[in-house]
C-alpha cells in the first residue's frame, strides 16, 4: 500500500503534512485545557521549542475528559469554553490544534475549530464516534484501543472511510498486559502502516499504568525517552506527548504528563532518530525482509 500523506491545518494556521518520508511531526500540549491563560502560555513555550528544533507541530489539549477514573476528577472546561480557548491558540500562534471528543454530538463543533479531530482509544471502534469524526471533514487522529490488536484497527479505518474521510492518523498508546499495565508492541507501527495511513506514537499514555492507584492512573515517566527513541527508530510519522509546566499539579494525567523542561531534549532525540531512520531508508530501501508474498 502506497503511503498516504494527510494534511493538517486549515485557514491561516501552519499547514502540517504528516506521512511518508516527511519530517517527524510533534503533537502535544497539556492533557486538559485548564484555563485560557495556561493554554496560551503552554502553546507559546512549546512553540518556541519546536521552532528552535525546526519541528512541525500541532497543539493538543482537550475540553472534556470523559474517561477519568473518578467522578471527582477534573472533567474539563466543556465544549464551548474549551473550543474558544483552542480557537485563541490558533489565532495567537498560527498553530493547528487538536482535541479529542467523546460524544458524537460534539463532532461538528469540534471539527469547526480543530484542524485535527481525535477519537479516544477507548472509543476507537464505536461506529457513531468514527462516523462523527469522519463527517467533520478534518483529518482524524485515531488511537488504537489498549484492548485492540493493531491489525483490527483496519476495521475502524474502514468505518471512517465509509463515512467519506480518507485522512487518518493511527496512534499506538500501548496495549494492555493483564490489569493496570500497558506495553508497546513496536510491530504495531508497520502493521498499522499497512493501511497506507501514517502512524503516531503516543509516548506519555504508553507509560501510563491505567487506574493503578485505585481511583487514578499512575505512570512511569522515566521510560518516556527510551520508548520515544525506540518508536522513532522503528518508524513513525508523528510523536504525541502530553506536556505540562507543573506535572504534579496538572488537572489531568498528572502521573504521565511530561515536564516541559525535558521536552526539548526528548524532541531533539526523536528528530535525530527519525532522520537516521529516513537515512537508512535512503541507503537500504524499504523494509521488505520476509514480507509475505
Amino acid at each position: 500500500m502506497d503511503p498516504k500523506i494527510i494534511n493538517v491545518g486549515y485557514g491561516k494556521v501552519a499547514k502540517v503534512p504528516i506521512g511518508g518520508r516527511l519530517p517527524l511531526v510533534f503533537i502535544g500540549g497539556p492533557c486538559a485545557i485548564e484555563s485560557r491563560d495556561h493554554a496560551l502560555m503552554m502553546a507559546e513555550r512549546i512553540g518556541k521549542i519546536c521552532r528552535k528544533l525546526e519541528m512541525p507541530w500541532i497543539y493538543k489539549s482537550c475540553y472534556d475528559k470523559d474517561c477519568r477514573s473518578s467522578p471527582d476528577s477534573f472533567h474539563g472546561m466543556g465544549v464551548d469554553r474549551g473550543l474558544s480557548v483552542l480557537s485563541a491558540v490558533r489565532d495567537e500562534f498560527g498553530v493547528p490544534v487538536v482535541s479529542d471528543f467523546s460524544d458524537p454530538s460534539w463532532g461538528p463543533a469540534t471539527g469547526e475549530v480543530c484542524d485535527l479531530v481525535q477519537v479516544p482509544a477507548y472509543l476507537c471502534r464505536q461506529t457513531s464516534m468514527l462516523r462523527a469524526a469522519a463527517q467533520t471533514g478534518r483529518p482524524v487522529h485515531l488511537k488504537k484501543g489498549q484492548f485492540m490488536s493493531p491489525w483490527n484497527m483496519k476495521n475502524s479505518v474502514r468505518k471512517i472511510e465509509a463515512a467519506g474521510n480518507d485522512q487518518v492518523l493511527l496512534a499506538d498508546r500501548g496495549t494492555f498486559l493483564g490489569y493496570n499495565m500497558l506495553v508497546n508492541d513496536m510491530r504495531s507501527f508497520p502493521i498499522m502502516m499497512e493501511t497506507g495511513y501514517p502512524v503516531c506514537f503516543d509516548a506519555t499514555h504508553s507509560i501510563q499504568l491505567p487506574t493503578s492507584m485505585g481511583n487514578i492512573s499512575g505512570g512511569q515517566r522515566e521510560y518516556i525517552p527510551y520508548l520515544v527513541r525506540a518508536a522513532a527508530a522503528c518508524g513513525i510519522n508523528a510523536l504525541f506527548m502530553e506536556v505540562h509546566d507543573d506535572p504534579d499539579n496538572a488537572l489531568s494525567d498528572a502521573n504521565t504528563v511530561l515536564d516541559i523542561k525535558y521536552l526539548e531534549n526528548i524532541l531533539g532525540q526523536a528528530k535525530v532518530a527519525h532522520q537516521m531512520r529516513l537515512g537508512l531508508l535512503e541507503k537500504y530501501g524499504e523494509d521488505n525482509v520476509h514480507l509475505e508474498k
Partner: protein
Amino acid sequence: MRVSEIMLKPEKFPVLPARTLLKEALEAMGRSNLGIACIVDERSHLLGILTDGDIRRKLLKVQKPFSAFFVDDALVHSIRTPATIRPSSTLIESIELMGKKQIWDLPVVEESGKLVGLLHLHPAIRAVLGMDR
C-alpha cells in the same frame, strides 16, 4: 463451441472489489460453492484471483494469527497474473489450458482486461460431451 456460450456470468461467481478483506472473500467463495474469487478494479478489470489452493498454501506459510490474516486485503494473497482466456476462445483449447495448468477455473477476460465471465471445468466438460443437449 466458444467460451462465451458456457461461461458463468459475473453475477454467478464471486467478483470482488479491490479492498475486500480476505475473510469476506472466503465467505463469498463459500456462498458460491466455487473455489475461486476474482478481484477487479472500478472498471471491472481483473486485478487478481484468489483460489482455495492459494489459501491452502498460505496457511502452511503465514505465521501471523488468524485474526490478522483475516483482515488482510484479499488482493495481497491473490495471484496477480493468472491464466485467463478470451470469450472467443474455444472450449477445447480452454480445457486443454486448464489441464496443462492443473486448474479448475479460468477467468474470461476481454482484450481490454475487463472480466466478463468465468469458465468452470464441469460445465465446460458437460458441454463438450454434449451432456446438456
